[in-house]
């Protein structure tokens, strides 16, 4: 017997095991998304049915949870959505600018203290937010910046999300140095190399950073809970949380409806940005 036939027989799977694998995947996958589908369906049901009907079949289409939920809190829900959007866009811009600058320096430039700075940068991934949030809170409250977006946005413009710096460093290291050299021979300095050679080539890493930042900031609850106490500036997660305070079981309908509204942007980003998420995760995980 030749190795060739051996290989083929090793690779080919019996139809039975293939069917079995698909069965496991389908049952497992259904189990995973069932809660989400049920949340969606339930948001169109009268509130009392939420506690009675575990199924997914919608008999009537009731939109009142949405209208009620939209107006249930101190401000219309749209106001929280706008606040979250401002925060998310600011965070994305901040992270893209500050992290890519730092990453270029770590990946391509030589300077004194590079090794320990890089190590320190990686170590900050490990530092729990709790150890810096108390002094930061004191600091920002003395500057009367609580209930503004400064405490949440400023860190993004100062590259404190070391994870993204790391992701970009890994990516830049994969870009051939010959490209930099060619640009240098043509007389380009580091700024031009950064803007005209490296940045255009690292779009996948930038996209991954933008998407992860989007999801992280959109879902960020802990810092929003601490810094944003006025209804005027509150973001979606904190607003959703106030549903729990006001609620008996009767408010589960509106709460579900607004939960769906809050999950929708993340879902859309997932749908259209999946490619970058997958490659972004793989890059940081592998090297």
């Amino acid at each position, binding site marked *: 017997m030749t*190795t060739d036939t*051996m290989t083929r027989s*090793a690779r080919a799977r019996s139809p039975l095991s293939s069917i079995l*694998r*698909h069965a496991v*995947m389908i049952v*497992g*996958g259904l189990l*995973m998304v069932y809660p*989400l589908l*049920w949340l969606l369906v339930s948001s169109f049901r009268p509130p009392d049915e939420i*506690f009675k009907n575990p199924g997914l079949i919608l008999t009537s289409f009731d939109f009142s949870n949405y209208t009620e939920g939209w107006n249930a809190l101190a401000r219309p829900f749209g106001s929280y959505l706008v606040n979250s959007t401002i925060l998310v866009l600011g965070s994305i811009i901040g992270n893209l600018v*500050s992290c890519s*600058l730092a990453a270029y*320096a770590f990946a391509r*430039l030589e*300077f*004194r203290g*590079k090794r320990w700075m890089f190590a320190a*940068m990686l170590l900050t991934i*490990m*530092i*729990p937010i*709790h*150890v810096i949030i*108390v*002094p*930061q809170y*004191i600091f920002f409250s003395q500057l009367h910046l609580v209930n503004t977006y400064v405490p949440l946005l400023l*860190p993004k*413009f*100062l*590259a*404190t999300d070391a994870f993204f*710096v790391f992701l970009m460093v890994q990516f830049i290291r994969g870009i051939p140095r010959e490209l930099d050299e060619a640009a240098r021979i043509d007389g380009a*300095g*580091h*700024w031009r190399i*950064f803007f005209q050679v490296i940045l255009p080539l690292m779009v996948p890493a930038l996209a991954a950073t933008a998407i992860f930042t989007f*999801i992280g900031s*959109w*879902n960020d*609850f*802990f810092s929003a809970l*601490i810094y944003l106490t006025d209804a005027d500036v509150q973001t979606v997660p904190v607003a*959703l*949380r106030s549903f*729990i305070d006001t609620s008996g079981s009767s408010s*589960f309908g509106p*709460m*579900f409806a*607004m939960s769906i509204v809050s*999950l929708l942007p*993340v*879902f859309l980003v*997932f749908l259209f940005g*999946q490619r970058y998420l*997958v490659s972004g*995760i*793989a890059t940081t995980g592998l090297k």
Partner: protein
Amino acid sequence: MSAISELRNSSQRQGTARKREKVAYLFLLPWIIGFVFLAIVPMATSLYLSFTDYNLIRPAEWIGLENFQRMLGDARLLNSLRVTFTYVIVSVPLQLIFALAIAMLLDRGMRGLSFYRSIFYLPSLLGSSVAIAILWRQIFGTSGLVNQFLALFGIEAPGWVSNPDTALGTIILLHIWTFGAPMLIFLAGLRQIPVMYYEAAQMDGANPFQRFFRITLPLLSPIIFFNLVLQLIGSFQSFTQAYIVSGGTGGPADSTMFYTMYLYQKGFAELDMGYASAMAWGLVIIIGAFTALNFIASRWWVFYDD
């Protein structure tokens, strides 16, 4: 090349090197400012505050080790440690096992792979949101989704969230549900293992069990290690899920009172910021110790190719 021109060259090189350094520090400027003022200074302040009594209104008063002594005798704190450790030690390995198992089933040219991958990945993106925690609160509530299903089989169960014996379990389950991110990393890792190895092993008569323990596991161990380190660091800091599922109380009977929640309560509800700072340093030490232990243990089980 003459000595003089060499000298001139090297001094020129030094000049450009210094200039290049200046450029480097310009690129790094935002990070350096952030590192100093948003990491180092706050950490030093927090360390100082941990030795003081401070409530944001009166000036901080130095009390030495009192906060740390108080921590050792604080029954609620010790309970919150127990809750957090249970959560981390149960949910992290289970999550990684699920992630690896599904990744292995998905690997190697299965039809519909990208569709299945999306389905399993989606929960990990949504899972950290308040919305999902709210959903969880309903699902495991007294007349929630789970009990509605159980009722179809005539089983009457109490509310899972309101029972001190099961409340933590529901949050652990939520964490396991979000295994998609480590699964993606495993998938990418599995793809790096040459098919050749498996074929050779099969020719030598290795069974699937042996192939897993002799090939997959050793070759994947750096990635398992990476996932383990990241997940441990993250899980010790979990907050949102327990906070929302318990309605902000950490109840019932403190059974979901995570260390971070107790810290939040002390620092931001009671404004006992000296004590909260001491607790935060406790967390740093715990996470640091676990990470260090991980790195030390990795010498025995993580296998590097090169």
